[in-house]
Each structure stands twice: as structure tokens, then as C-alpha cells.
């Protein structure tokens, strides 16, 4: 894997990885560095891998930094920062095949920063070893302060020493990182900010003096952008932003990884944004509260993950049957099935999200592929919910939710206007005339909301007549089912076609990659690499709205394609099944991955190169990363 020429990548493509025990502060360390790098004028993508555990298991953060920016992470580590032994050599307690440590991922010419008490394990010949006495340097940092002698209690601060140490190798502007530390510890804890800044400086100096000389991978000072620095954002926040912008009033949720991040973010903004966030007793309650809120006329939403969706399908059918204007359900997928891999990544909920419940009912399913699309889709989901009076699902995943990326602009100013859909306005005779489920004209009946004079209606999850009362009459049934299901066709007609899919890259290509959701960044990066390194002309069909399915547009593109390659992070190749079901077209080849982690650049490139060279079939790729 470690092909030559990497030194020349220099500051345009550098991966820094920090690993350590969960709960040991690697999030703060990595995010601090990532933010400092962004503010310094670099572009960053940073993702975390962690266990379903609170303290002790191996966790690591991969931060890729460059001038031009990547949309996916790479396995080739230039600087490894090890906070513990396991980061270096792997899981000692694993009875069955276990992770073997990150030292193996360090490229020739790269470096490992580690505690002087640990051994680095097996490593490439051309790797710079930088043992650093973490605790001693921390003790020194605390000296003279009110915390002197408390090093073992403040052991988490050795992270700062380690990060500082690594920055010396990179020739990175230490002050930027120190600023990030000071920003993190505000108010009463300001002294800790200062102590951390000092600890970072001691680590920095230690390495600068002993190891940094001649290290090839550097992030020297560049001129940062003028004006406000860019944001470092992840999908969890992007979804919340889209919802807030859309005017969300009510969010109910039950804690579950990886949906909790979005929920906690919204919860923290209840006061300043005026919304109500309710932590419920379970997911059944969460969806049903949201349906109640949607019927009451508020823009309502809930967010969950696969196990939660399994409990929410009942409520989705309820919303669809009663033609509630929503709710919007954001599904943050994780590794399945069942409890599965709670903190890991997978795109294995698509099929379930396409038929989320018994019987036949309409809903809209959209799967954004990056933070900008998440903002847009989370926002527009509410317009669709109101306009078509059906639940709308936004399908995202762990990788999208947690991966930080640098961006200047979320596009909030370019969103379409708020559309609350057809609303009932009181006319002549009030209630007597109003039919909430009128099927006589048009498919979507203007809705009233409780409290509105003249708009009284009934609704039921049983089949019902135009007034909303139960009936089992055959003729009425047919018309009501046609009315409900017909809204899918209406949505297909009304929603602009470019919202359904995007063909990235050249219109015509030798290879057409087909995928959805969070693989977008990886595939866009791969298109560049294929063009640059392999001289392969490839394009990428990204399908974004899955229901209603854009049959004719997809058919046209796939019929014209020379060779199609499906890429998905699941076992079955679920989008491939959907495409075949809807268009009859089978993908020529597929690359799947279901090891609980998103595609690294190298995994995807390996896969693509393999299938481009070989005949048809399904290829499972995995580099078995930690």
C-alpha cells in the first residue's frame, strides 16, 4: 500500500492520527488540533472510531489536513500520536482476531509519538520513533501552579503534551493550538487553559529539540483566509441547522448512538432557538409525540438510529394513514443488525427505510451525501412533509454524523422558501363543509389544525371516509388508497429533478460509479485519483431521493453507462437491489464493505481498481482497520 512519493505530498495531504483509551480525552485533543488547523488556513477532514463503551476501549481520531482539501480520510498515517500501548500494538485482551495497532499504518518517513514507557511494537524501517515522557513533562508544566503535584489526577492532560509534541514534527504554529486550548477552557477553568498551553509547549519543545529536524511532512504557516475563519462542522450539527432554519418547533427523541449528537445539540439550543426538545421514555413515545405535534401544526421531528427505527415504524404508518404533515425522521444509521455495532458505521438500513412498516403507505426518503446536502435535505424535508402531508425520512449515518469537515458556508441563504403546504381557511359554513380527507378535488387536501375555528375534523388510523370517520366500504377504500399513494407521484412530478440525483463528473465515462449517502466524499475523491493516477474516465451517479424513485432519470443514465459499479457500505448492495427493482437494470459490478467502518481512500481505490480490471461480480473490501 505504501507507494512512494508520499513525502512530496507535503502539506497538501497529511494524516495525523491520535489513539488512546476511550474517555481519555482524544476527542478534545483531535478536535482542538483540527480546529487549529482550520483556523490556520488548512482544510481538514477528521473522523473518529470508538467502541460502545465509556472508558478504556481503544478509540482513535484520524485528521487529514491539506491546502486543497479532501473529502475522505486516508489510511496512510504521517504522524501517529499514541496515548497508550494499544494504539501502538493493538488489543491485547482480544481472544479472537483483534486489531493489531496503528504503527503498521505509518508511511515510510512518518513518525510515531508515544509515551517513553511504552514500546512501539513492529514498525516499518523508515519510521521515526519519538518516545516522549508524557507524565514528566506534565509534572513540569504543573510546577509552580496551584495544581503542582497533581499530575496523576490530571493525567488526561498528557494528551496535550502528546499533541504539542507532534506539532513540532509538523512545524505547525503552536500558538494556534494553544489558542484552541484556551478557547476550550473558559471562565472558571481559565487556569487549566493556561496549564494546557504550557504542557503543549513543553511537548513541542521536547520533540523539536530531539526529533523534528528533517522530518518531511510539515504544515508550515500559510496565510489564513481573510474574514471569519471557516467552520469545522459535522453532519449532526448540519442536520440540526437545517431543522432550525426550517422552523422546527418540536423535537422528541430517545438517546441512541449515533443520533444522540444531533439531539443533544438541539437540546443545548432550546433556550436560544425557542424549540421544545423532549427526551422520551422510548422511541415509540418519541415518534408518537412527534406525530401529535405535527397534527397540532408545529414542524416536528425526531432522530434515531436503526434499533429506534424498528420501534418507530408503527408511528410512521400512523402519520401516513392520517396524512399528518410530518414528522421528519432523521435516521442516523449504524452497524446492524439488532444492537449490532452501536458506534460503528454502516449503510444497511436503506431497505428497511424504504418499507418502514406494514401495509402500503406513502413516505418520502432522502439520503444526503455530505454536510451541505444534510442542511438542505433536513430543511426541505419539512416543506415536503407539509406539502404532501406524509412523513419524511432523512437517511444519514454514523460517518456523516461524526466526521468533521472544513466548510466556509452551509448555503443557508440559498434554501428555497418555507412552504407549509395547502392550509384550510375558514369559509362559509365552518365544520359542516370541511372534509379533511376530501378526495373530490386534488390529491392533497388543505389541512386545518386544532384550535382553528371551522376546521374541526376527525382522523383515524383505520380506513376512513372524507370526513375522517371509519368506513370499510370498498369504493371508499380504493379512492382513499389512491389518494394517499397518489401523493408519491405528485411529489415525483413536483420536486425538481435535480433534487433526486446528481451525475458527478463527465456526462459520459468509461466507468459509472453508482452510490448514495455518505460514500459521496470518498467517491468524489476517487474520481479525481482515477483521472489523475489511473487515467480512467469515471463518473458518479449519486441517488439522493429514494422514494419516490426517479425511475426514468436513473434508467436513462444507466442505459447510457458503459460499465456500472455499485459502491455501498453494506452486505447486500441495497441500492443495487432498489435500482433493479425499479428499472430492471443490474449493476455490472459491486463493491461492498460491512466491517463497521466507512471506506478509506485506499479501500475504495483498491476496490475500484480491482473491479475495473476484473469481470463482473461482487467484491467485499476491507483493510480491517482498528
Amino acid at each position, binding site marked *: 500500500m505504501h507507494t512512494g512519493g508520499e513525502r512530496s505530498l507535503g502539506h497538501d495531504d497529511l494524516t495525523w492520527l491520535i489513539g488512546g483509551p476511550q474517555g481519555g480525552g482524544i476527542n478534545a485533543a483531535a478536535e482542538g488540533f483540527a480546529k487549529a488547523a*482550520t483556523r490556520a488556513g488548512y482544510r481538514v477532514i477528521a473522523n473518529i472510531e470508538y467502541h460502545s463503551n465509556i472508558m478504556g476501549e481503544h478509540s482513535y481520531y484520524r485528521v487529514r489536513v491539506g491546502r486543497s482539501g479532501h473529502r475522505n480520510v486516508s489510511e496512510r498515517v504521517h504522524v501517529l500520536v499514541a496515548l497508550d500501548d494499544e494504539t501502538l500494538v493493538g488489543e491485547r485482551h482480544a481472544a479472537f482476531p483483534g486489531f493489531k495497532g496503528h504503527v503498521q499504518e505509518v508511511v515510510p518517513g512518518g513518525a510515531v509519538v508515544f509515551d517513553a514507557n511504552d514500546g512501539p511494537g513492529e514498525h516499518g524501517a523508515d519510521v521515526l520513533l519519538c518516545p516522549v515522557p508524557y507524565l514528566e513533562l506534565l509534572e513540569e508544566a504543573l510546577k509552580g501552579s496551584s495544581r503542582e503535584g497533581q499530575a496523576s489526577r490530571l493525567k488526561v492532560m498528557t494528551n496535550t503534551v502528546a499533541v504539542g509534541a507532534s506539532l513540532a514534527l509538523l512545524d505547525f504554529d503552536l500558538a494556534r493550538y494553544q489558542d484552541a486550548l484556551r478557547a476550550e477552557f473558559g471562565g472558571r477553568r481559565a487556569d487549566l487553559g493556561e496549564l494546557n498551553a504550557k504542557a503543549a509547549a513543553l511537548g513541542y519543545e521536547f520533540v523539536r529539540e530531539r526529533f523534528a529536524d528533517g522530518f518531511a511532512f510539515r504544515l508550515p504557516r500559510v496565510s489564513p483566509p481573510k474574514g471569519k475563519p471557516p467552520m469545522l462542522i459535522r453532519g449532526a450539527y448540519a442536520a440540526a441547522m437545517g431543522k432550525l432554519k426550517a422552523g422546527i418547533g418540536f423535537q422528541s427523541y430517545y438517546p441512541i448512538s449515533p443520533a444522540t449528537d444531533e439531539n443533544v445539540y438541539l437540546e443545548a439550543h432550546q433556550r436560544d432557538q425557542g424549540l421544545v426538545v423532549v427526551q422520551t*421514555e422510548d422511541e415509540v413515545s418519541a415518534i408518537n409525540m412527534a406525530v401529535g405535534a405535527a397534527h397540532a401544526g*408545529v414542524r416536528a421531528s425526531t432522530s434515531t438510529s436503526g434499533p429506534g427505527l424498528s420501534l418507530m415504524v408503527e*408511528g410512521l404508518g400512523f402519520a401516513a394513514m392520517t396524512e399528518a404533515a410530518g414528522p421528519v425522521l432523521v435516521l442516523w444509521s449504524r452497524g446492524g443488525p439488532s444492537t449490532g455495532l452501536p458506534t460503528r458505521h454502516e449503510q444497511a438500513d436503506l431497505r428497511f427505510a424504504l418499507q418502514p412498516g406494514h401495509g402500503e403507505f406513502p413516505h418520502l426518503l432522502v439520503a444526503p451525501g455530505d454536510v451541505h446536502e444534510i442542511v438542505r435535505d433536513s430543511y426541505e424535508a419539512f416543506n415536503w412533509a407539509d406539502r404532501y402531508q406524509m412523513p419524511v425520512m432523512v437517511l444519514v449515518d454514523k460517518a456523516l454524523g461524526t466526521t468533521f469537515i472544513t466548510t466556509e458556508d452551509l448555503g443557508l441563504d440559498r434554501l428555497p422558501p418555507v412552504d407549509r403546504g395547502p392550509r384550510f381557511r375558514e369559509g362559509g359554513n365552518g365544520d359542516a363543509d370541511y372534509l379533511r380527507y376530501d378526495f373530490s378535488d386534488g390529491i392533497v387536501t388543505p389541512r386545518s389544525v386544532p384550535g382553528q375555528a371551522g376546521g374541526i375534523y376527525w382522523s383515524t388510523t383505520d380506513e376512513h371516509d372524507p370526513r375522517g370517520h371509519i368506513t370499510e366500504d370498498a369504493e371508499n377504500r380504493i379512492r382513499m388508497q389512491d389518494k394517499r399513494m397518489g401523493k408519491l407521484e405528485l411529489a415525483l412530478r413536483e420536486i425538481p429533478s435535480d433534487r433526486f440525483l446528481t451525475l458527478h463528473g463527465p456526462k459520459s465515462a468509461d466507468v459509472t460509479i453508482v452510490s448514495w449517502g455518505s460514500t459521496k466524499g470518498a467517491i468524489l475523491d476517487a474520481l479525481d485519483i482515477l483521472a489523475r493516477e489511473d487515467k480512467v474516465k469515471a463518473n458518479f451517479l449519486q441517488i439522493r431521493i429514494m422514494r419516490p424513485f426517479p425511475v426514468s432519470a436513473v434508467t436513462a443514465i444507466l442505459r447510457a453507462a458503459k460499465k456500472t459499479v455499485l459502491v455501498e457500505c453494506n452486505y447486500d448492495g441495497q441500492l443495487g437491489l432498489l435500482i433493479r427493482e425499479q428499472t430492471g437494470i443490474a449493476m455490472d459490478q459491486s463493491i461492498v464493505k460491512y466491517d463497521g467502518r466507512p471506506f478509506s481512500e485506499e479501500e475504495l481505490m483498491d476496490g475500484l481498481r480491482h473491479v475495473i480490471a476484473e469481470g463482473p461480480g461482487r467484491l467485499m473490501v476491507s483493510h480491517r482497520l482498528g
Partner: protein
Amino acid sequence: MATVLKPRDYKSDAHINWCPGCGDFGIVNAIQMALAELQLPPHKVAVFSGIGCSGKTSHYIHAYGYHTLHGRVLPVATGAKLSNKDLTVLAVGGDGDGYGIGSGYFVNAGRRNVDITYVVFNNSVYGLTKGQGSPTLRKGLKTKSMPEAAIQDGVNPLALAVSSGYTFVARAFALDPRTLASLIAAGVRHRGSSFIDVLQTCPTYNDLYTAEWYNHTQSGGPRLYRLSETGYDGKVKDPSDADEVVAKKVQAITKSYEWGEKIPVGVYYEVDLPTYEDALAERNPRYGREALVDTDFSDRDLSPLMDALR
């Protein structure tokens, strides 16, 4: 609509398909009487119901009506009420709906004290699925449609409600709609989660707890008596007095075990405590001033959120 609202103003024109003589008629009448007593404009009332014979109630009342899912009526009603605090929200459903499949929501709604009124049609059977024993049927009992007697114990809904935190807990009888109506009205007036367990006859399936059974003990007199008539007072005078609160809770729970020759009806427990809405308003004063549904969010400023990420 007349200036003075009558019970009939709360009748919808939906065709009622309960069995002749079903206790549910008494309950729906009582709800209509209570709404008239409160003179609530029908469009300011929303009735949420579960699934079951009882679940059909929302169709029969002239008010916004939501016939929801089996066991989920409380979360749905909660979501609606929190979205429009100016609405009068009634939740109704069966004993299977509320104490069986819905028992988790019953317990957790009690903890929130949202200002809604929950009326349970307690007939000790699953009516609409043809007379299986419901959660209130006691061990050893067998109604006519059951192949075997119940081998699990019945729940004690009142004790459960008090333990769960409802701030108004009462019991009434479906065949005495007048008293029931005044209890429902009191429940609606009460700020917070009110719960009323209504002993309801199901002439079709429940041949144990019949009108006859309720009206005549073995010794002849009626089985039901009013708590108020015995000097019982379930109301907490000083809600800040934790000892009084516990004492009144324990008193109510003790009473709730009275079942047999004598069954008390009326208010078992009542306390004035801040509601969930009060807590939300404390967090965000605008919530206290206007209903969420009327709030205009188009002025939201997200730049501080974005700046925090820079």
C-alpha cells in the same frame, strides 16, 4: 352556534356502533356534559383516543378528533398539547390500551404532569378483539368468552397512577354519567395530568362486572360509594409539604385496594404542582406567552451557532 353550549353541541354525526347497552355510551355522554359544563368552544378541544371499542369515542364527539394507535394515545396527546398549550386535550382509551400495551406510556406520562386529562374505559376485557381478559381482570376470574380463567394478577390502576406521579387521580362509574361528567370537568380544570379510571360495563363480554353487580352487593345495596361522603379528602393542602404529599399518596393507594363489597369512587388524590409546560416556560419565557404552533420561527438567527464552529 348558541351562546350557551349544550351537551348536544359536542355530539358529532358519526354513526355509533357500540353494542346496545354498552357502558361506553355513558362515558361519551359524560364527556359531552363536561365540555358543556366547561363551555369550551368545540374547536378548542382535541380528543385523542386509543384503539378498541373505547377508541371510537373520538369520532362521536364534535371536537378535533384523533383516533390514534393501540396503546399510544398518551404520547400523541402529549405531543399535541406541548405544541399548542391553549388547546384542551382529552385522552381516552380502554384498559387494555392504557394499562396493558400502553402501561409504559401510562407510567411515564404520569412523571411529566402535562396538562391533559386521561379517561380510561375500564371494562376488564379487550372488547374489540372479542372479550379476552384485560389487565384489570383479577387472577382466577373468567369472563364468558375466556377459555381459561386469568392466571395473572390484575393491575391496580389507581395505585399505579399515584406511584407514577399523576396529580389528579379519580375513579368513576360509566352508568352514572352525571358524577362522571363533574369529575371529568374537574380533571380538565386541574392544571396537570389528570387521570380518571372509569368502571365500565361491557354487557357483551363481561358477565362478572355487570350493572347488576355494581348496583347490588350480596347484601343488596350499591357497591359504589362516594369518597366525599365518608369525609375522605384526597387533596394535598400544601404541595410544598413533602410529608403531606406522601401521606396523601399513601392514603390514596390504601383506598385503591378497596375492591369488593365496597368500591370507592371520586377523587383519590389531587395536588397542585407546576406542569411540564410551566417548566418549559421557565426555560423559555416565549413558550409561556404564546402557543408553539403560533410562534413564528422565521426570525431565527443561526450565526452564533455557526460562529461557535469557527
